[in-house]
């Protein structure tokens, strides 16, 4: 089975965020594999181990993203591809990302493509379905279970807390929701092996993409932190009097009840 995983290097949103000059400051920040993409990598490895084949992880980014690709290889992926857009693309949006990924994937005859359901930084959840549409293959989002039996793919997906059971077939793109699996940690031998696994670097030229073709459709005008909330009020005194104070605050000050 020919399996591809779309992996995004993301800002670790558990870390402190600093905005200056209308941009998120990335210097010194922690970067990780988008957590939902870790589920996708884990699932890809599991499917390969059960059905044979090869797992290729693909990312669009700059050289820094090599680190996350090596981690994916150490988890057990077979090959990695970095589509380096540093010199070619100034502004990227979901259209851009999907277009580039689809151009890369279009002649790869992928049976199964896995992505995260959402990137924790950009947060749109668009890239997976957009790629599937460009490749003209079916997609299923926010999956929590995947079983491949011959031609049939049985899936459970999360729809706002309910579990939808469905059947479809390959080729297919799925996006991973939490609950799909428990991603493994790279083992020491895994990390050693990963150093020797192939990591291919491509640029837009290699994919015959013109810069104009991938120009972003949307434009970020400003990035800002939410207005600092007034420090919340920690009530004081005996619990019963705190409770009655709270009720009157909710009614008279906050006016929500």
């Amino acid at each position, binding site marked *: 089975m020919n399996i591809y995983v779309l992996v995004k290097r993301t*800002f670790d*949103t*558990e870390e402190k*965020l600093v*905005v200056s000059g209308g941009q*998120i400051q990335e210097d010194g920040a922690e970067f990780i594999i988008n957590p939902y993409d870790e589920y996708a990598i884990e699932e890809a490895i599991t499917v390969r181990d059960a059905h044979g084949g090869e797992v290729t992880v693909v990312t669009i980014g700059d050289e820094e993203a090599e680190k996350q690709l090596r981690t994916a290889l150490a988890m057990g992926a077979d090959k990695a591809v970095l589509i380096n857009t540093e010199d070619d693309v100034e502004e990227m*949006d*979901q*259209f851009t990302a999907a277009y580039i990924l689809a151009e890369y994937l279009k002649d790869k005859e992928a049976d199964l493509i896995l992505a995260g359901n*959402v990137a*924790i*930084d950009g*947060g*749109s*959840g*668009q890239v997976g*379905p*957009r790629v599937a*549409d*460009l490749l003209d293959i*079916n*997609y*299923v989002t*926010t999956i929590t279970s995947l079983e491949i039996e011959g031609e049939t793919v049985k899936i459970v997906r999360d*729809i706002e*807390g*309910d579990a*939808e*059971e*469905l*059947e*479809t077939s390959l080729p297919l793109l799925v996006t991973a929701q939490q*609950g799909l699996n428990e991603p493994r940690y790279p083992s020491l031998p895994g990390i050693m092996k990963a150093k020797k696994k192939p990591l291919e670097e491509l640029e837009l030229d290699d994919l015959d993409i013109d810069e104009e073709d991938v120009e*972003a*459709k*949307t*434009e*970020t*005008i*400003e*990035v*800002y*932190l*939410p207005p600092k*909330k007034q420090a*919340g*009020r*920690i*009530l004081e005194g005996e*619990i*019963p009097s*705190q*409770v*009655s104070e*709270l*009720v009157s*605050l*909710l009614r008279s000050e*906050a006016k*929500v009840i």
Partner: protein
Amino acid sequence: MSKKVLVLGETREGALRNVSFEAIAAAKKVSGGGEVVAVLLGEAVSEFGNELVAYGADRVITVEHPHLKSYTSDGYGQAFMAVVDQEQPEAIVFGHTAVGKDLSPKIASKLQTGLISDVTDIEGEGADAVFIRPIYSGKAFEKVKLKENGVVFITVRPNNIAPLEREERSGDVSSLSVDITNLRTIIKNVVRKSAEGVDLSEAKVIIAGGRGVKSKDGFEPLQELADLLGGAVGASRGACDADYCDYSLQIGQTGKVVTPDLYIAAGISGAIQHMAGMSNSKVIVAINKDPEANIFKVADYGIVGDLFDVIPLLTEEFKKVM
């Protein structure tokens, strides 16, 4: 310049979802005085048409087909694109719901346009409209607009954009017949896990419990308070993982994103993934034993104490004054 805007209406358990009315209100802004046309897809949905008009749609188009009984991206995609071909809209608004999230990227891809997802606010109107959306798990916001003259396409986060006042109006409800073929996904079954009654993502009051609730029974006092206030019970991942409640109650990045008027977090520490789902709530109350808990950083009011003391007292106190 005014725009013709298509809005996708959604139903759930035999009724229109609130987010559809909010999407119409958003569409009105985006239209800058142009026409707002609501679209309903399903097996039998035309009965809901007039209600969308009452909330501000100028016109409604329904596509009814047995293959639209359950949502599939193929079925809904074909139906919605048929409406797009007929109407040639200049803008589209969906709710940022399970259906909206799944379908909007496909439609945007087919229209080769930008899509601005999970919008919580709109500044300006018509051609000048600028959209605000949370990024970095809700730690920051961005203002975005479409670069060129394409179809303006947004999805709106439930409970953020106020619906218009309901008024009796008249508007045309017409049907479009579409041949829906080649569904690549077959829905076998939906296991309902979410509770009947108030939909968590649209609730005005949410009482959420975390690992601090300690057991299934521990949720009972929360439920009692929620019932009293006409709200819903939610949970952190911690409580779901510990099997104190079903995952359908989970609030956060992986679960539901909620924006109630009042969010009471009891026994929840306030992890970033949880906050991504609730930090936009209008008023947040935190109840936690640990004065250092992160949740107090986003709380408007905090009580440091045992939730099993505080919650029943709260219920009693509300009973007295309501």
